[in-house]
């Protein structure tokens, strides 16, 4: 990706790596981007943010029900676990792992508490991802 992303954007990604928001998997994703698909990272990040937001909305709805179906809740958490592991969103992945434990225990309180944590870490990552993409776009506009 190095060839197609601006240095300032890479710097932003590096700070997310150094604070533990992202892990080395994100660096590997950057290396997958090449000339044949210059929007690869943008698309991945956008997909992750949109899907993640949708999943958190679903989790909120599911845990709001009178009778919680913990298997369905776990299915949604698994999806977010999978996507966060794949993009390198380490803290989101770890929150999902914790969440799944409470699903196994069928603990509504545990799930609700972990959902709060998950919401915070997810919006932290997605906010920073969006800022990174905006920076990238601004840089691209400036060099036109």
């Amino acid at each position, binding site marked *: 990706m190095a060839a197609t992303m601006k240095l300032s954007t890479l710097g932003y990604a590096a700070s997310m790596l150094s604070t533990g928001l992202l892990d080395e*998997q994100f660096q*590997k994703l950057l290396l*997958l981007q090449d000339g044949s698909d210059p929007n*690869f990272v943008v698309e991945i990040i956008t*997909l992750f943010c949109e899907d993640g937001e949708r999943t958190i909305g679903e989790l909120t709805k599911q845990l709001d029900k009178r009778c919680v179906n913990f298997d369905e809740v776990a299915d949604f958490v698994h999806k977010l676990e999978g996507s966060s592991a794949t993009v390198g969103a380490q803290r989101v992945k770890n929150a999902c792992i914790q969440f799944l434990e409470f699903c196994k225990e069928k603990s509504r309180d545990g799930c609700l508490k972990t959902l709060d944590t998950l919401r915070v870490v997810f919006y932290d990552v997605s906010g920073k991802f969006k800022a990174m993409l905006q920076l990238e776009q601004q840089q691209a506009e400036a060099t036109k």
Partner: protein
Amino acid sequence: MVSNTRGSPVKALLVEDIAVCTFILSTMLHKFNCEIVVVKNGKEAVNLFLDGKKFDIVLCDKDMPIMSGPKAVEKIRALGETGVKIVGVPADDNAMEAFMTAGADVFVHKPMKLETLGTMIQEVINKKNIMV
């Protein structure tokens, strides 16, 4: 580096319901010039085999709606599809036994490394070239 000077492209079936994972694995498979078919659950995968479709490699998630990965693997093998390389690609740590008992050849935890996929694709190519 994956080398396929002799044969046709590797036919890959990706069984995955998570959009981000599908996108990334498809990108990785394209880098190895694979022909890719994507389905979103185990039942769709099994249906492809029932329709007579052939694949060289199947990359399969574990938890999916309608039919799980291990269940799909079991049914694919029961159809007599013993030659296709099936790779379980789950997100969680506890999936290995389920996949291997079902008949998967290999188990690779998400996220899959490009080099790992490359090695598997090369093995498939080598096997295809021997059979030609």
